[in-house]
């Protein structure tokens, strides 16, 4: 189906100033940390003039669970299950980013089959993350429950795949330095192929459900516009950056893993508004399906872990490394400093959704308070990663 829908002139946006407001009075409202649509324990202090947002200050830290401090006190392997809990929708990509950084730090090669498995799992993660994001976003817009139920129906199928491979639905703890923990058998790959083949059917249906919907268009087009210059300066990454028309995808730029072997396109937006950000997710899912089809066709039997890497008493040489990948929410990086000991001296996570919130105030100014939830939803945050 066509992915572009023209702007609807017929729908009028509410006037920017409200007639009956008190002159010059700003009302300060604290939204969150317990709020139905803040996607976790996020809080915004908003100054309102009538219904229009004049100031917005995000307040963080309600889920600051000291990931970095704990990472500096446990072994390199011991941090792997903690990375699952960063962005708890995407444990596989978190695992990969951390494994990639440690592999850079210690100079470890990864066998071919493990690279394929990593790509398959990372793209499946992208599918379920984007699907549930669209569901949540529509939920915030007032499409109560229904799209979320459809999205979670698909997500459950992918979680079943994760569970039968790694043993857990969400906290997979699947990757290891120099490979993966367990091998996927043929039955698993066949099931994955089947789910990937059926996924476009869900996408068609979902796009039919929401993308042409006049209410969705009215609520999202021209709402929360972000310019490309500001996006680059503010370090915005992932679908949010590409919605502004900036062609930057770490999968293409760094070419980590075996991504250069696959043919896929990077969808780009034009306006940088909420609708483009929403579309970006829908289009990226289609490209992920393409990558998955290629990867599932090409994967060959072989070893899945580098035998030289010890599980216990793993001590990388002295040095530092910054490794990054394109996680579903943006650039996820790990910065590690090793002093030669069993624990990292410095363990730093570069959380994409935290840095993507830098421009939240710029996006929301001048919009109504009801739009704040929609804009926040389109940024795609997960508090586990924002606060760590």
């Amino acid at each position, binding site marked *: 189906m066509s992915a572009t829908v023209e702007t609807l002139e017929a729908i009028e946006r509410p006037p920017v100033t409200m007639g009956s407001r008190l002159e010059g009075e700003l009302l300060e409202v604290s939204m969150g*940390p*317990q709020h139905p649509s803040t996607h976790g*324990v996020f809080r915004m202090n908003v100054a309102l003039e009538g219904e229009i947002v004049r100031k917005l200050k995000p307040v963080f830290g309600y*889920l600051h669970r000291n990931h970095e401090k704990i990472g500096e006190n446990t072994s390199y392997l011991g941090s792997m*299950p903690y990375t699952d809990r960063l962005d708890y929708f995407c444990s596989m990509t978190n695992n990969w980013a951390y494994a990639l950084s440690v592999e850079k730090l210690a100079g470890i090669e990864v066998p071919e089959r493990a690279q394929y498995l990593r790509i398959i799992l990372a793209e499946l993660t992208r599918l379920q993350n984007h699907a549930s994001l669209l569901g949540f976003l529509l939920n915030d817009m007032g499409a109560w429950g229904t799209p979320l139920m459809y999205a*979670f129906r698909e997500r459950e199928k992918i979680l079943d795949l994760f569970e039968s491979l790694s043993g857990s639905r*969400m906290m997979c703890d699947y990757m290891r330095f120099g490979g993966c923990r367990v091998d996927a058998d043929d039955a698993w790959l066949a099931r994955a192929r089947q789910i990937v083949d059926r996924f476009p059917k869900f996408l068609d249906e979902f796009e039919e459900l929401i993308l042409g919907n006049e209410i969705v268009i009215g609520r999202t087009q021209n709402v929360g516009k972000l310019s490309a210059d500001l996006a680059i300066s503010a370090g915005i990454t992932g679908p949010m950056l590409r919605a502004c028309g900036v062609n930057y995808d770490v999968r293409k730029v760094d070419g980590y893993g075996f991504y250069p072997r696959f043919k896929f396109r990077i969808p780009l937006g034009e306006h940088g508004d909420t609708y483009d950000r929403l579309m970006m997710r829908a289009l990226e899912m289609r490209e992920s399906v393409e990558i998955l089809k290629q990867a599932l066709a090409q994967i060959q039997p072989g070893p899945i872990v580098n035998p030289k890497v010890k599980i216990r008493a793993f001590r990388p040489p002295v040095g530092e490394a910054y490794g990054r990948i394109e996680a579903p929410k943006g650039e996820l990086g790990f910065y590690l400093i090793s002093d030669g000991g069993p624990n990292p001296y410095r363990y730093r996570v570069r959380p994409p959704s935290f840095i993507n919130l830098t421009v939240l105030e710029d996006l929301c100014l001048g919009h109504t308070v009801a739009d704040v939830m929609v804009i926040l939803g389109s940024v795609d945050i997960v508090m586990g990663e924002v606060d760590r």
Partner: protein
Amino acid sequence: MSEGQMDEALRRELQRQGVWVTSMQELYNWGRKNSIWPLQFGLACCAIEMIATAASRYDIARFGGEIFRPSPRQADLMIVAGTVTKKMAPQIVRLYNQMADPKYVISMGACAISGGPFKQGYNVLKGIDRYIPVDVYIPGCPPRPEALLHAFMELQRKIDEQKLTGADKAAHLDPQQPSEFPVPAFGRHDLEPPANADVFQPPKLERV
């Protein structure tokens, strides 16, 4: 009102004849246990499993708990789903205080019970039961949706056992029992106080 004094055999016989006999207590508990409205309130990873429990596959509506209320005033059950940080703890106690009696707390997942894997963190509260009483604990990180349903049924059993009268009547019917708990304050190094001694009474551990 026959307070469960009726002969079981007679009751069964009457039921067979189409006469449904019940006690006030049973009726009251039956109504409450089948319409538990949880507070729509998620903290971390476990909240996603809580949403999955409410979503299509597990469907908590089958137990009468589908109406997640965003306002504590309308909720009966607080599912503490996820890591409670010290920055968040005062807000949780405040939410609990705002809920109307009778109210129940499910502590979902390792973090909410004891701080879980993050318990060594400087900003992580080692268990929400330091400030508010908890009715059911679900271990797991995160617990499967089925485990949450299991805990939900456990809570229903607990509600069913509550007495309306007598010395051991339910806490919310006893005016002596507190229904609100003090909200901790942000201190210079830690929450003040670090635990509510009236609620948090761990047994003494003997170790060599």
